């Protein structure tokens, strides 16, 4: 195929922010090429540079063997279908389409002949005299395409043209665009962030990310053999886990060795392992290569999307002491006050991270006047020291209504899970039955009361606690001690299946050797 357009090392930045970091790309004649990426990846900028509406800071654009860097947009043999169509509101459909021909000063009969041919190409016969402002989104879209194509450009640029249409119309226009491209036989360069759109229409997809090209390939290549985890995540659904090569055809992940195709990785190399959700089959637990528990089920129309946890996360169990604590009533001021005993981590005291406000919230200290209005607690006195032991703290209002509770300073055991690289901590706590009953979001409140937190052992960054397990009914809780387990996310696999499963089911997962795709670890972090 003949090479029509060549981007050579295109660099562009706006206000010091680099949008394109040296893009190299070749586009052939008669190709339907899609620039795919999230907003801000530079795809529209690249298109605008080709259209001549923006000038690159560095690099060259070659068009049909000629450098076109200095050619103004109106002399380029390129036309554009704009994101919001940009139809001329003061002209009817016919005049909009005829615009480019009138500029070229063609004869009236030739213009009307060409415009009519375009109207039938985009299925808008009979709309000549309509005002463009009164057309539907889909019809405006067609006028915009006709207005560009009537100039018989070598290349048509389409800047997210289907973004404003509803789903049904979008699908229709996808087919329509593909048909038009095949009929007129010119190069279409289509910009979108919609992976499905890209897969349906393109001959070639260019996946972009943060001003760089991640992968160029046919839709099949991009889907089946994504170059890296970024592309895999962007196109289709994916499960991506860390793996290590044991030999050229053996990869280890999730503590097991799996046979795989030869992807030319050296033994010992660290790779990203991709398994598409539709390639995983749900089987009986003993028949699966992995076993797990169904965590969630989402109905997607044709299939169900399951999340199956094959390994639990890092967890820590604490005791919740439910005790009834009576509000203290001050007869002289008519004020009431309450607070709970609490545990505190001696390390938090050493770092002097605890303020009076922290004590108030951890003890859940509150005060009310006779009309049940909240009063602020202005006095906090305590004898708390860093040494583990039992201390006391007194909370008081302006009018000297006071309550004293016990503080247990302890050296809690952290759970440090070296294999997952995660640490987790939580403290025992005291709480009243009423506070549990009044809680609107019990899992979140339990996390707060227990000061539960998890972190990455390497860089101390916080890790989400996704699972709070407890064995009581918040509505009917009575005094006593209860175990609560906090856990981080374990290893979960997304599975697409047509058979029905319930949350909590034990299932086996099975997949074939060729369903395991190995990808080079991305060098840059995004």
């Amino acid at each position, binding site marked *: 195929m003949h090479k029509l357009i060549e981007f050579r090392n295109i660099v562009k930045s706006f206000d010091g922010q680099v949008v394109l970091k040296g893009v190299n790309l070749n586009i052939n004649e008669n190709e339907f090429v899609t620039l795919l990426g999230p907003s801000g990846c530079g795809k529209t900028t690249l298109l605008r540079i080709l259209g001549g509406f923006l000038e690159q800071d560095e690099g060259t654009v070659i068009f049909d063997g000629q450098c076109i860097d200095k050619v103004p947009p*109106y002399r380029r043999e390129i036309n554009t279908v704009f994101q919001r169509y*940009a139809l001329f509101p003061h002209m009817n459909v016919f005049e909009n389409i005829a615009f480019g021909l009138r500029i070229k000063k063609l004869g009236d009969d030739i213009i009307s002949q060409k415009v009519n041919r375009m109207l039938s190409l985009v299925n808008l016969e009979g709309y000549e005299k309509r005002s463009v402002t009164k057309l539907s989104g889909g019809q405006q879209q067609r006028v915009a395409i006709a207005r560009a194509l009537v*100039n018989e450009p070598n290349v048509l640029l389409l800047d997210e043209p289907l973004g404003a249409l509803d789903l049904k119309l979008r699908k229709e226009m996808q087919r329509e665009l593909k048909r038009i491209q095949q009929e007129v036989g010119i190069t279409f360069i289509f910009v979108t962030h919609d992976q499905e759109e890209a897969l349906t229409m393109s001959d070639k997809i260019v996946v972009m990310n943060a001003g760089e090209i991640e992968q160029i390939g046919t839709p099949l290549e991009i889907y089946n053999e994504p170059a890296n985890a970024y592309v895999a995540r962007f196109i289709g659904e994916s499960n991506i886990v860390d793996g290590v090569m044991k030999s050229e055809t053996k990869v280890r992940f999730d503590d097991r060795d799996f046979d795989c195709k030869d992807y030319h990785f050296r033994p010992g190399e660290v790779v990203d392992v991709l398994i598409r959700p539709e390639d995983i089959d749900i089987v009986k637990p003993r028949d699966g290569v992995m076993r797990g528990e169904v965590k969630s089920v989402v109905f997607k129309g044709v299939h169900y999307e399951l999340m199956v946890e094959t390994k639990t996360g890092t967890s820590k169990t604490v005791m919740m002491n439910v005790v009834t604590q009576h509000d203290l009533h001050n007869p002289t001021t008519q004020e009431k006050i309450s607070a709970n005993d609490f545990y505190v981590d001696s390390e938090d005291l050493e770092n002097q991270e605890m303020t009076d406000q922290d004590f108030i919230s951890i003890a859940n200290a509150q005060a009310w006047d006779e009309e049940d209005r909240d009063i602020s607690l202005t006095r906090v006195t305590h004898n708390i020291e860093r040494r583990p032991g039992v201390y006391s703290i007194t909370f008081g209002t302006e009018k000297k209504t006071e309550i004293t509770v016990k503080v247990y300073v302890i050296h809690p055991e952290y759970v440090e899970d070296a294999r997952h690289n995660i640490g987790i901590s939580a403290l025992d706590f005291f709480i009243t039955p009423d506070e549990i009953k009044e809680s609107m979001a019990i899992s979140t409140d339990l996390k707060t009361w227990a000061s539960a937190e998890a972190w990455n052992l390497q860089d101390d960054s916080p890790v989400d606690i996704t699972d709070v397990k407890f064995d009581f009914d918040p509505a009917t809780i009575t005094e006593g001690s209860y175990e609560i387990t906090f856990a981080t996310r374990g290893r979960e696999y997304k599975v697409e299946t047509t058979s029905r499963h319930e949350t909590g089911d034990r299932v086996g997962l099975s997949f074939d050797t060729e369903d395991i795709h190995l990808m080079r670890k991305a060098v840059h972090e995004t």
Partner: protein
Amino acid sequence: MKSFFRMSYPYILWIGIFIVAPMIMILLYAFSVPGNSVLTFQFTLDNFTKFFGDPTFMRVLFTSLRIAFLTTVFCILIGYPAALFISNLSEKRQTMMVLLLTLPMWINMLLKTYAWRGILMNFDLESEVKVFIGMVYDFLPYMIIQIHTSISKMDRELLTAAYDLGANKWKTFLKVTLPLSVPGIISGITLVFLPAVSSFVIPKLLGGGDYVLIGNLIEIYFLNAGDWNFGSAISLIMALIIIASMWATKKLDRNADKD
């Protein structure tokens, strides 16, 4: 709705006493002979035949229309490039420029006209030129603001689309920017032509005693000559001219919309 309607009663009363009643009186005066009271009304067309029969009056009418027309044309010629320039500035600067333009509008017109009288005294110019300068100065901001509003409402992407389709900057202006700013020009014309044709302060202060426009004519007949009947007739004629020109511009506007 009904209760809202009742709230408009005071306003209707106000309009009735201060606008409708005087208009009816003007109508009655215009078609009656001097010395009439409402009870002894005597119909006549003399006031109109007097106006249209006298070349002096016709010359005054013609001069008024001519100077208003020239003022409007010059306001467009100066105002359009100015508005175009302003709408190409950054948003912040546009606000600043519009503020600067409207600033003189806060100053009393009489004061501004007196200032012009002082300036123009030093130049040996014809009365009509002085009046013309005063009018263009006074009405120009209205024109610029109207055109600027219509240009800045325009989608910038339309210009990009025109370049894309092969139009250079000049062709883009002619085929896109100009037609889309016609509504702004039309409302600018309404805001400039109508006050210009009926203005009497500017010609009085800048034109000297001998320079008379139709507004001054009305003033003279009501206040100096005491001939309310003839004064009313001239007012009526001017009102009809204004209504006719408003109708014409509306029609122009609608035609521009259709294309």
